[in-house]
């Protein structure tokens, strides 16, 4: 019963993810796209939840739907010019220009599907029919992170630092203050 319900919730969530993702990439208005993206992010976090990764789900909401989206929206606010940029976008993206892209990506999609369902049954063997019911706690993750994966933390820190410096440097050239603030936002 519970399984059935979980399946149903998963299917609904997945459908929401796919539909909103499609809407995201086909929207002409950046703001709309961003809103769809937020929906996608939230749905993904739900999937995480279903998969038992509650910490990840929380992070997903905080970082993606929170910080990253805010960044996007800031930039959009700076660049968006209302109807003009909408018209521009309509010119840049419409169905006829994306036929090739559609073709290629659907080819890839069918290949992947084929590989997923019709090639060898390794997936069935390796997966556990009944996964461990134990939820992974934040503490476990923390122990892992500052234990065997401490190098990863350092690398992430360096990566963030370099991204910070790069972002400052790139947006600095016309020497305006707002760019500097943008760097701090990170």
């Amino acid at each position: 019963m519970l399984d059935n319900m979980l399946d149903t919730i998963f299917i609904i969530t997945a459908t929401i993810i796919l539909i909103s993702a499609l809407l995201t990439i086909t929207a002409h208005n950046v703001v709309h796209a961003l809103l769809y993206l937020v929906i996608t992010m939230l749905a993904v976090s739900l999937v995480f939840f279903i998969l038992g990764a509650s910490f990840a789900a929380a992070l997903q909401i905080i970082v993606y739907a929170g910080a990253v989206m805010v960044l996007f929206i800031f930039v959009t606010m700076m660049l968006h010019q209302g109807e003009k940029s909408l018209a521009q976008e309509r010119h840049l993206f419409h169905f006829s220009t994306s036929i090739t892209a559609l073709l290629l990506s659907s080819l890839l999609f069918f290949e992947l599907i084929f590989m997923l369902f019709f090639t060898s049954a390794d997936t069935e063997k390796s997966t556990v029919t009944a996964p461990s019911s134990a939820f992974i706690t934040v503490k476990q993750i923390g122990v892992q992170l500052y234990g065997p994966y401490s190098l990863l933390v350092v690398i992430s820190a360096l990566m963030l630092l370099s991204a910070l410096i790069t972002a400052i440097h790139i947006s600095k050239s016309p020497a305006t203050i707002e760019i500097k603030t943008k760097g701090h936002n990170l």
Partner: protein
Amino acid sequence: MTQYSSLLALIPLLPLFSALILLFSNLPKLGVSILAVGSVAGVAFISLFLNFIFWQQSDFILTASLGTWINIAQLKISFGLYLDPLSLVMITIVSGVGALIHLYSIGFMYQENDFKRYFTYLNLFVSAMLFLVLADNLLLLYLGWEGVGLCSYLLIGFWYQDRNNNLAANKAFLMTRIGDTAMAIGLFLLFTQLGTLDIQEIQIKAHSVWSLNNDNNTMASICCLLLLGGAVGKSAQLPLQNWLPDAMAGPTPVSALIHAATMVTAGIYLIARNSQLFQLAPDVLYLVALIGTFTLLLGASAAMVQTDLKRILAYSTISQLGYMFLALGVGAGASAVFHLMTHAFFKALLFLSAGALIYSLHHEHNIFKMGGLLKKLPVVAMSFAIGCAALASLPFTSGFVSKELILAQVVASGHTGLWWAAVLGAFITAFYSARLFFVVFLGQTQLSPNAMPTKSMSLALVILGVLSLFGGIQPEGLKALMPQLNTEGLSTLQHWLPIILPFIAISFAWWLFKTKRFGKPIVSSFLQAIHQLLKSGWAFDHIYQTIFVFPLNTLCQLNKDDLIDSFYRLIERTSCTLHRTFSQFQNGQLRSYNASLIIFCILAFAWFISGELIL
């Protein structure tokens, strides 16, 4: 004997040094004349002196060496000079006629700006010719041989501003060069077979290596054939004869000296010089006779219809050289050289008189525009008459003596067919000589001379005229050196026909002249075709143009951009195309980079899937 060696060494060097001085100095015209004529005249005196000394001796040999040239392993070649009766006759002709023509040239060329250059070439020519005839080895002879060819080239193209002259010069050089190359190959063959290039040694060794009855004398034949190739080229004989008429583009004294009296006789000299070698190859000797016969007929027939004064003389030279070849071919070397000598006299005389005519008549060459000049230019007319008489071999001229000798020798050798051909040739010769003289000097006056020959020209003409009349004395030394056939036992016909025939020919020509048939346009188209054929010298020019020059030219033109290079260019172009094709992918478009990445992924997955499916 040895005391004359230094004198001998002086002979070719004197004109050479004179040429060098002329080349680098800046003498006035008078100085140039004195130096140029003086040097050749000096040589002439030296050779006359040597003649005087050796007149009685029939088998003298005088040698001199100017140092070694090449000395590698077996190949030992020196600048050795070798004087024997044959070369003595030759140097006498070369220097004697040469001196007279130098003298004549002073007058003829005095108006010319390039006076010095002319005499430089002329002196260089005499020097080269003397090296040719005095060489004791074939390589030195080849040096002289090419040297005279070069000077001939330079002198034909002396008036270099006229393209036709240059073309004639090129033609002369190239056609003789073909023969020369054959001769050079002959030299290689002789050296590999006999291990020496010394002329006397070759004669001796040839007899020991290839004896006449042996089977392996094909090698001797090949050697002789190759040498004959050189001789044919230089002496304007049958396959390579058609450069000579064009060579008349040069100044007339040059034609006299080079293309009538001396250089063209080099071929005769070469064969005469190697007569012992040629005796080993009777087939080749017969070929020589045949070539001579055909050439003499060809030359004579072509001379009949020419209208250009100098071309007539050029064809007659070819024809007379044919007589000499005939004599050589039937084994009468001495008579050939004798005819060479008399021919040098009378042909030089004819050319110089023609030169005087041309000089007086504003460079007019067409005989039908002349006429009635007998009274206007008596000296020229006299000398021309003597020359024509000698050419037609009328009795009591030098030409008569030598040509009769040749004809007698042909009979004695047993080649009756060749004799008839030669007699026919003599008939034609007499005919065209008479035609030439009548048309130019008798009849209506058309052009009056505007300048009289200068004194130096007249002097040369007179001396040569005397020589043409009385020069028919065969040098004694030759008879001992060269084969001579027994001419007793000629039938009456064979004896008298050649004497009578010229008179018949002259009468016939006189009849034609009186009835004004010379120079008339020919009505019958068939006859006209023949006339054209004869006039173009049996169309050899045309044939060579079609067979050799045109294909070679076309071939070269086709390949002008270098076929092999186009292979490399193909490599270049392929890599360029590849470069361009691949750089299409690098278009700076982010999306196409992405697309290619995706395509690669698709292909990789497809590959993976196909592998899975096969499994």
